[in-house]
Protein backbone atom coordinates (compact mmCIF):
# COMPACT_ATOMS: atom_id res chain seq x y z
CA UNK A 1 0.00 0.00 0.00
CA UNK A 2 1.40 3.43 -0.92
CA UNK A 3 2.14 6.10 1.64
CA UNK A 4 -0.73 8.58 2.17
CA UNK A 5 0.70 11.80 3.61
CA UNK A 6 -2.67 13.52 4.07
CA UNK A 7 -4.10 10.56 5.96
CA UNK A 8 -1.04 10.27 8.22
CA UNK A 9 -1.03 14.00 8.97
CA UNK A 10 -4.78 14.11 9.62
CA UNK A 11 -4.47 11.14 11.98
CA UNK A 12 -1.90 13.14 13.97
CA UNK A 13 -4.32 16.06 14.24
CA UNK A 14 -3.15 18.40 11.48
CA UNK A 15 -5.99 20.50 10.12
CA UNK A 16 -6.28 21.37 6.43
CA UNK A 17 -9.30 23.66 6.67
CA UNK A 18 -8.85 26.56 4.29
CA UNK A 19 -6.14 24.84 2.25
CA UNK A 20 -6.64 25.36 -1.48
CA UNK A 21 -6.28 22.51 -4.02
CA UNK A 22 -2.68 23.47 -4.84
CA UNK A 23 -1.72 23.45 -1.17
CA UNK A 24 -3.43 20.10 -0.67
CA UNK A 25 -1.55 18.72 -3.67
CA UNK A 26 1.73 19.95 -2.19
CA UNK A 27 0.93 18.50 1.22
CA UNK A 28 -0.06 15.19 -0.38
CA UNK A 29 3.39 15.03 -1.93
CA UNK A 30 5.17 15.16 1.44
CA UNK A 31 7.59 12.31 1.94
CA UNK A 32 7.44 9.86 4.81
CA UNK A 33 10.51 11.56 6.38
CA UNK A 34 8.80 14.96 6.31
CA UNK A 35 5.54 13.60 7.72
CA UNK A 36 7.38 11.79 10.51
CA UNK A 37 9.17 15.00 11.48
CA UNK A 38 5.98 17.07 11.30
CA UNK A 39 4.03 14.63 13.43
CA UNK A 40 6.75 14.30 16.06
CA UNK A 41 6.97 18.09 16.35
CA UNK A 42 3.19 18.39 16.56
CA UNK A 43 2.99 15.73 19.25
CA UNK A 44 5.64 17.54 21.33
CA UNK A 45 4.01 20.94 20.86
CA UNK A 46 0.54 19.63 21.70
CA UNK A 47 1.79 18.06 24.92
CA UNK A 48 3.46 21.33 25.93
CA UNK A 49 0.58 23.56 24.85
CA UNK A 50 0.22 26.63 27.04
CA UNK A 51 -1.87 29.76 26.83
CA UNK A 52 -0.90 31.50 23.62
CA UNK A 53 -2.53 34.74 22.52
CA UNK A 54 -3.59 33.53 19.07
CA UNK A 55 -4.77 36.29 16.79
CA UNK A 56 -3.71 39.13 19.06
CA UNK A 57 -1.71 41.90 17.38
CA UNK A 58 -1.40 39.91 14.16
CA UNK A 59 0.57 42.72 12.42
CA UNK A 60 3.41 42.23 14.90
CA UNK A 61 4.97 39.38 12.99
CA UNK A 62 8.54 38.44 12.24
CA UNK A 63 11.37 37.78 14.66
CA UNK A 64 13.85 35.57 12.85
CA UNK A 65 15.79 37.11 9.98
CA UNK A 66 18.59 35.83 7.78
Amino acid at each position, binding site marked *: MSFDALKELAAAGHNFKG*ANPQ*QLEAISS*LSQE*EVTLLNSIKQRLDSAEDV*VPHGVDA*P*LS*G*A*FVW
Partner: protein
Amino acid sequence: MTRHSQALRAKTGLLLPQLMATTRRLWNSPRLNELYPEYLCMLHSSIRSTVPLMERAVARCRELADDDPVAQALVPYFTRHIREEQGHDEWLRQDLAAIGCDPDEPLRRLPTASVANLVGAQYYWIQHYHPACLLGHIAVLEGNPPSTELVPELMRRTGFPRTGFRTLERHAALDIKHRDELMRTLDEAPLTPELVTAIGLSALHSIDAANNALATVLDAHPAMTTANA
Protein backbone atom coordinates in the same frame (compact mmCIF):
# COMPACT_ATOMS: atom_id res chain seq x y z
CA MET B 1 2.04 20.86 -11.50
CA THR B 2 2.87 22.58 -8.22
CA ARG B 3 6.13 24.52 -8.32
CA HIS B 4 8.86 23.73 -5.79
CA SER B 5 8.44 27.11 -4.11
CA GLN B 6 4.66 26.66 -3.74
CA ALA B 7 5.11 23.15 -2.38
CA LEU B 8 7.66 24.36 0.16
CA ARG B 9 5.31 27.14 1.29
CA ALA B 10 2.49 24.64 1.76
CA LYS B 11 4.72 22.35 3.82
CA THR B 12 6.08 25.10 6.06
CA GLY B 13 2.56 26.50 6.45
CA LEU B 14 1.77 23.47 8.61
CA LEU B 15 4.25 24.56 11.31
CA LEU B 16 4.56 28.32 10.89
CA PRO B 17 1.55 29.15 13.09
CA GLN B 18 3.49 27.85 16.11
CA LEU B 19 6.50 30.06 15.34
CA MET B 20 4.19 33.03 14.80
CA ALA B 21 2.50 32.37 18.14
CA THR B 22 5.86 32.30 19.96
CA THR B 23 6.82 35.50 18.14
CA ARG B 24 3.64 37.19 19.38
CA ARG B 25 4.36 36.01 22.92
CA LEU B 26 7.70 37.77 22.73
CA TRP B 27 6.43 41.04 21.25
CA ASN B 28 3.42 41.10 23.61
CA SER B 29 5.43 40.25 26.71
CA PRO B 30 5.06 42.64 29.64
CA ARG B 31 8.85 42.11 30.05
CA LEU B 32 9.60 43.30 26.51
CA ASN B 33 12.13 45.95 27.63
CA GLU B 34 14.17 43.25 29.40
CA LEU B 35 13.71 40.63 26.72
CA TYR B 36 14.53 42.74 23.65
CA PRO B 37 18.31 42.87 24.41
CA GLU B 38 18.20 39.11 25.07
CA TYR B 39 16.49 38.64 21.72
CA LEU B 40 19.20 40.71 20.01
CA CYS B 41 21.93 38.55 21.60
CA MET B 42 20.19 35.34 20.51
CA LEU B 43 19.68 36.68 17.00
CA HIS B 44 23.34 37.69 16.81
CA SER B 45 24.38 34.13 17.63
CA SER B 46 22.27 32.96 14.68
CA ILE B 47 22.97 35.73 12.17
CA ARG B 48 26.73 35.53 12.57
CA SER B 49 26.50 32.10 10.94
CA THR B 50 24.66 33.38 7.85
CA VAL B 51 27.69 34.17 5.70
CA PRO B 52 29.87 31.27 6.95
CA LEU B 53 27.02 28.81 6.22
CA MET B 54 26.70 30.08 2.66
CA GLU B 55 30.48 30.08 2.22
CA ARG B 56 30.51 26.43 3.29
CA ALA B 57 27.58 25.70 0.95
CA VAL B 58 29.18 27.35 -2.08
CA ALA B 59 32.49 25.60 -1.41
CA ARG B 60 30.65 22.26 -1.28
CA CYS B 61 28.71 23.15 -4.46
CA ARG B 62 32.01 23.80 -6.25
CA GLU B 63 33.37 20.45 -5.05
CA LEU B 64 30.30 18.65 -6.46
CA ALA B 65 29.66 20.82 -9.53
CA ASP B 66 31.36 18.66 -12.17
CA ASP B 67 28.91 15.79 -11.66
CA ASP B 68 25.97 17.54 -10.05
CA PRO B 69 23.80 20.00 -12.02
CA VAL B 70 21.96 21.18 -8.90
CA ALA B 71 25.21 22.08 -7.12
CA GLN B 72 26.37 23.82 -10.29
CA ALA B 73 23.12 25.81 -10.53
CA LEU B 74 23.37 26.99 -6.91
CA VAL B 75 26.88 28.49 -7.12
CA PRO B 76 25.70 31.86 -8.55
CA TYR B 77 22.86 32.12 -6.01
CA PHE B 78 25.07 31.52 -2.97
CA THR B 79 27.88 33.70 -4.33
CA ARG B 80 25.54 36.65 -4.87
CA HIS B 81 23.77 36.14 -1.56
CA ILE B 82 27.02 36.06 0.43
CA ARG B 83 27.73 39.61 -0.76
CA GLU B 84 24.21 40.76 0.16
CA GLU B 85 24.32 39.36 3.69
CA GLN B 86 27.67 40.77 4.85
CA GLY B 87 27.73 42.76 8.08
CA HIS B 88 24.27 42.01 9.46
CA ASP B 89 25.81 40.82 12.74
CA GLU B 90 27.32 44.29 13.07
CA TRP B 91 23.84 45.85 12.73
CA LEU B 92 22.79 43.84 15.80
CA ARG B 93 25.74 45.13 17.82
CA GLN B 94 24.77 48.67 16.80
CA ASP B 95 21.17 48.01 17.88
CA LEU B 96 22.42 46.90 21.31
CA ALA B 97 24.60 50.00 21.66
CA ALA B 98 21.67 52.24 20.65
CA ILE B 99 19.52 50.96 23.53
CA GLY B 100 22.34 51.36 26.04
CA CYS B 101 23.64 47.78 26.12
CA ASP B 102 27.16 46.52 25.67
CA PRO B 103 27.55 45.64 21.98
CA ASP B 104 30.18 43.02 22.84
CA GLU B 105 27.78 41.04 25.03
CA PRO B 106 26.76 38.57 22.26
CA LEU B 107 30.42 37.78 21.58
CA ARG B 108 31.07 36.95 25.24
CA ARG B 109 28.07 34.66 25.73
CA LEU B 110 28.05 30.94 25.19
CA PRO B 111 25.61 30.39 22.30
CA THR B 112 22.59 28.38 23.40
CA ALA B 113 22.05 24.76 22.44
CA SER B 114 18.86 25.77 20.65
CA VAL B 115 20.75 28.08 18.27
CA ALA B 116 23.46 25.43 17.80
CA ASN B 117 20.65 23.04 16.86
CA LEU B 118 19.18 25.55 14.41
CA VAL B 119 22.47 26.35 12.70
CA GLY B 120 24.45 23.19 13.32
CA ALA B 121 21.99 20.97 11.46
CA GLN B 122 22.71 22.98 8.33
CA TYR B 123 26.46 22.43 8.56
CA TYR B 124 25.74 18.71 8.84
CA TRP B 125 23.38 18.57 5.85
CA ILE B 126 25.68 20.73 3.70
CA GLN B 127 28.70 18.61 4.48
CA HIS B 128 27.18 15.14 4.66
CA TYR B 129 24.20 15.28 2.29
CA HIS B 130 23.80 18.20 -0.11
CA PRO B 131 24.29 22.00 0.06
CA ALA B 132 20.81 22.50 -1.45
CA CYS B 133 19.43 21.69 2.02
CA LEU B 134 20.45 25.19 3.09
CA LEU B 135 17.71 26.57 0.81
CA GLY B 136 15.06 25.18 3.17
CA HIS B 137 16.68 26.93 6.12
CA ILE B 138 16.98 30.23 4.26
CA ALA B 139 13.37 29.95 3.06
CA VAL B 140 12.22 29.86 6.68
CA LEU B 141 14.46 32.58 8.10
CA GLU B 142 14.15 34.90 5.12
CA GLY B 143 10.62 33.95 4.18
CA ASN B 144 8.83 35.47 7.13
CA PRO B 145 10.16 39.03 7.40
CA PRO B 146 9.21 41.50 10.13
CA SER B 147 5.97 43.35 9.34
CA THR B 148 6.24 47.05 8.56
CA GLU B 149 4.11 47.79 11.64
CA LEU B 150 6.51 45.96 13.95
CA VAL B 151 9.25 48.54 14.56
CA PRO B 152 7.01 51.57 15.20
CA GLU B 153 4.96 49.48 17.63
CA LEU B 154 8.04 48.12 19.44
CA MET B 155 9.40 51.68 19.72
CA ARG B 156 6.12 52.75 21.30
CA ARG B 157 6.07 49.82 23.70
CA THR B 158 9.70 49.98 24.82
CA GLY B 159 10.59 53.65 24.49
CA PHE B 160 13.80 52.62 22.73
CA PRO B 161 14.97 54.79 19.81
CA ARG B 162 14.49 53.79 16.17
CA THR B 163 18.26 53.20 15.95
CA GLY B 164 17.77 50.26 18.32
CA PHE B 165 15.69 48.44 15.68
CA ARG B 166 17.84 48.76 12.56
CA THR B 167 18.14 45.01 12.06
CA LEU B 168 14.38 44.48 12.11
CA GLU B 169 13.63 47.58 10.07
CA ARG B 170 16.12 46.82 7.31
CA HIS B 171 15.10 43.17 7.07
CA ALA B 172 11.43 44.13 6.75
CA ALA B 173 12.34 45.46 3.31
CA LEU B 174 15.39 43.40 2.37
CA ASP B 175 13.99 39.96 3.10
CA ILE B 176 10.99 40.43 0.79
CA LYS B 177 13.34 40.98 -2.17
CA HIS B 178 15.61 38.13 -1.08
CA ARG B 179 12.65 35.78 -0.53
CA ASP B 180 11.47 36.31 -4.11
CA GLU B 181 14.97 35.61 -5.40
CA LEU B 182 15.14 32.39 -3.39
CA MET B 183 11.75 31.23 -4.67
CA ARG B 184 12.93 31.77 -8.26
CA THR B 185 16.10 29.79 -7.49
CA LEU B 186 14.03 26.92 -6.06
CA ASP B 187 11.79 26.83 -9.12
CA GLU B 188 14.61 27.02 -11.65
CA ALA B 189 17.07 24.57 -10.07
CA PRO B 190 16.90 21.02 -11.53
CA LEU B 191 15.96 19.51 -8.16
CA THR B 192 15.55 15.76 -7.84
CA PRO B 193 12.64 14.38 -5.75
CA GLU B 194 15.19 13.41 -3.08
CA LEU B 195 16.47 16.98 -2.86
CA VAL B 196 12.92 18.37 -2.73
CA THR B 197 12.35 16.17 0.32
CA ALA B 198 15.69 17.17 1.86
CA ILE B 199 14.94 20.88 1.44
CA GLY B 200 11.51 20.33 2.99
CA LEU B 201 12.99 18.46 5.92
CA SER B 202 15.56 21.20 6.45
CA ALA B 203 12.83 23.87 6.39
CA LEU B 204 10.59 22.02 8.85
CA HIS B 205 13.52 21.44 11.20
CA SER B 206 14.45 25.13 10.98
CA ILE B 207 10.93 26.25 11.98
CA ASP B 208 10.98 23.96 15.00
CA ALA B 209 14.51 24.95 16.01
CA ALA B 210 13.82 28.68 15.50
CA ASN B 211 10.73 28.30 17.65
CA ASN B 212 12.80 26.69 20.41
CA ALA B 213 15.47 29.40 20.16
CA LEU B 214 12.83 32.09 20.50
CA ALA B 215 11.29 30.24 23.46
CA THR B 216 14.65 30.37 25.26
CA VAL B 217 14.51 34.17 24.99
CA LEU B 218 11.09 34.15 26.65
CA ASP B 219 12.52 32.06 29.48
CA ALA B 220 15.60 34.27 29.89
CA HIS B 221 16.53 35.93 33.14
CA PRO B 222 18.06 39.09 31.71
CA ALA B 223 21.55 40.00 32.82
CA MET B 224 21.80 43.23 30.86
CA THR B 225 20.51 46.66 31.74
CA THR B 226 19.32 49.11 29.11
CA ALA B 227 19.31 52.88 28.96
CA ASN B 228 15.68 53.09 30.11
CA ALA B 229 15.24 49.83 32.04
